[in-house]
C-alpha cells in the first residue's frame, strides 16, 4: 500500500506531483516514483531516468550538509531519500523534493549529460572466463561468434548503482540475448565476470554468489570498485559502456 495520507502529526500528507508519486517507505524513508509505470518492466523510459538522475544530482547538492539525511538512492524510475526519522522535518523535506522535481520534470536535462563518461571495456569471452557462453549460444540458436557480436553491438547506459559496491545496472541489452538465470546459483563467481540474467547484463565488481549466465570477464586494468581510489566506483549513473572483445 502506498502510504500518502497522514495518519498522525508525525506523518504529514505528501505533496501531489506531476508525472510522479511520493510515498512513505517504513518510518525513515520517502520514495519518488515515476508514473504512470512504463508498459515494459525492463526499464523506465530513458526520459524518466534522465529526470531521476537530475533529481538525484540537485537533491544531493541541496541536502548534502543536512545531518538528518542518511542516503539518497536511485533505482529504475525511482528515488529514495533515507533520513533520521526524529531529526528530519519531513514536511520541509518533501516540499524540497517536490519543488526540485517540478523544476526537473518541466525543464530540460542537457546539464546532467555534461559529466557523462563513455567506457570501453575489454572483455575476454568464453573459455574459463565465460563458462556459460556455449550453452547460452545454443539456447538462442546462435554461434558463439554471433552471440559476442550481439552483446558488443549496443551502447549501454548505466541506469543506477546497487546490488553490490560498484555494480552498475545497465540498459540496452538486445532482446535476442535475454536468458533465464541458473535455477541453482553459483556459490562464488570470480570478480569482473560478465553475465546475463533475464533481461539484464552486467559485470560483477566483486566475487559474489550469483545466478547469472557467465559469458566473459572484464580484463581491463581499472577495477570496477576500488576503495582506495578517489572515485571508488568506476561507473556513475548516466555513463555509457561499450564492450570490446579482447583478442589475446
Amino acid at each position: 500500500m502506498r502510504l500518502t495520507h497522514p495518519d498522525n502529526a508525525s506523518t504529514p500528507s505528501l505533496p501531489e506531483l506531476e508525472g510522479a508519486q511520493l510515498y512513505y517507505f517504513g518510518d525513515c524513508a520517502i520514495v519518488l516514483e515515476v508514473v504512470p509505470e512504463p508498459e515494459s518492466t525492463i526499464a523506465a523510459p530513458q526520459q524518466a531516468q534522465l529526470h531521476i538522475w537530475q533529481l538525484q544530482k540537485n537533491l544531493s547538492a541541496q541536502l548534502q550538509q543536512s545531518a538528518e539525511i542518511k542516503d539518497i538512492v536511485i533505482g529504475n524510475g525511482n528515488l529514495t531519500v533515507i533520513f533520521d526519522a526524529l531529526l528530519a522535518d519531513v514536511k520541509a523535506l518533501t516540499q524540497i523534493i517536490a519543488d526540485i522535481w517540478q523544476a526537473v520534470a518541466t525543464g530540460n536535462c542537457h546539464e546532467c549529460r555534461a559529466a557523462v563518461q563513455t567506457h570501453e571495456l575489454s572483455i575476454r569471452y568464453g573459455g574459463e572466463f565465460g563458462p556459460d557462453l556455449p550453452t547460452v549460444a545454443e539456447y538462442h540458436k546462435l554461434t558463439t561468434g554471433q552471440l559476442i557480436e550481439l552483446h558488443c553491438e549496443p551502447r549501454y547506459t548505466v541506469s543506477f548503482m546497487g546490488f553490490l559496491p560498484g555494480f552498475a545496472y545497465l540498459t540496452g541489452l538486445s532482446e535476442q540475448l535475454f536468458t533465464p538465470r541458473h535455477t541453482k546459483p553459483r556459490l562464488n563467481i570470480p570478480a569482473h565476470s560478465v553475465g546475463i540474467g533475464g533481461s539484464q547484463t552486467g559485470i560483477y565488481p566483486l566475487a559474489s554468489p550469483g545466478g547469472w549466465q557467465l559469458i566473459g570477464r572484464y580484463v581491463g586494468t581499472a577495477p570496477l570498485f576500488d576503495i582506495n581510489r578517489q572515485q571508488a566506483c568506476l561507473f556513475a549513473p548516466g555513463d555509457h559502456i561499450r564492450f570490446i572483445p579482447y583478442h589475446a
Partner: protein
Amino acid sequence: MLNIIKAGIQTTVQDGGRFYVRHLGINQNGALDTNALTMANLLLGNEANAASLEIICGPVEIQFTHTAWFAVTGQYFELTINDGHGNKLRIDPGWRYKIQAQQRLLIHSTSHSGTAYLAIAGGIEVPPVLGSRSTNLAAGFGGHQGRALQSGDQIPCGEPGAGQQQQLQQTTAGVYQSASGHHIRAIPGPDYALFDTTQCELFWNSDWQAGSDSNRMGCRLHGPSLNTEQSQHHSLLSHAVIPGTVQVPPNGQPIVLLADAQTTGGYPRIATVISADLWQFAQLPAGAPFRFTRCDRGTAIDALKAQRASTNRFKIAIGSSRR
C-alpha cells in the same frame, strides 16, 4: 591492544554504520543491534556509536595487553575473566568491568544467545573507511582488514580521556538487558497491495521463525508460504531497499533485510519492520517463534522517541561525561 586467542564465528568490528554511500551500491553495515552497541558504549562513557566487536557465536577468548575498562551487552552470554594464575571470575553482561594487563576475557554462547557487543573504553581504533569503522564483508574493507576476526589478530584500542577515566573509577554501573519479544512491529510495505487477503492474514497471524540460514544480510523466515501466483510472476522495477524491509522472493518465504543487505532489490516488499524494533532480529533465539504486529508510521515514530528518551535517561543516570 586486544590479542585474539579464539575469534568465534564471524566476530567483526562494527560501529553505528556508514551512510551516504548507498548510491554507490555500498551497504550500511554497522551493528545489528544498535541498542546493545549504544548501551555498551554509554556504560563506558564512549560515544554511543563507537566501534566495538560484534560477536555472533562464541567461544571468543581475548587477552588484553593493557589494563582496560570494558562492557559486554547482549543476553545469555557467559562471561569469565581468567587472571592467568588459574583464577576464573564469572561476570555478567550489562556491567562495566576493569581487566588487568595479560588477563583474558572469555565469552561463551548458550543455546539462547543472540548477538553480543564488546565495547572498550576509548573504542576500537581500526582505521575508518568512508566515515565508519564498520566491516564491509562483501567488498572486504573496513573494520579489521575487511574480514571476520581470526585467532592471532591484534586489534588496536583507543585511550579513554582523563574525564572518562575518572568517571569509570567512581561507580560501578550496569544496565538491564532487553530480551527480544514475541511481537515485532511492522508497517505494511509499498507492495502490500500485491498480496491477497489470505496472504496478508497469513503474514500477520502466523508464527515465524528465524532460519539457520540467516546472517547479517538478512533474517530468512520459515513459516507459511506467501506465494500467490500473482506475486510470483510480478516483476518490479528495481528500487532501493533499507534494513527492515521484508521482501517476499519467489519461494514465498519472507526475508527481513538487515545491516549487510544489498542496497537495491526487485522482490515485492510486503512490510517494513519499524526502526525501533529492528534490533530484535539480532537477539532472536534460534527456533523461537515470533509474530509481526501491524502498526502505522505514527506508532513507529512514537516507538523511536521512546527509545531515544530511554537512552537519554540512561546517559543521565550513568553520568556519562561525553555524549
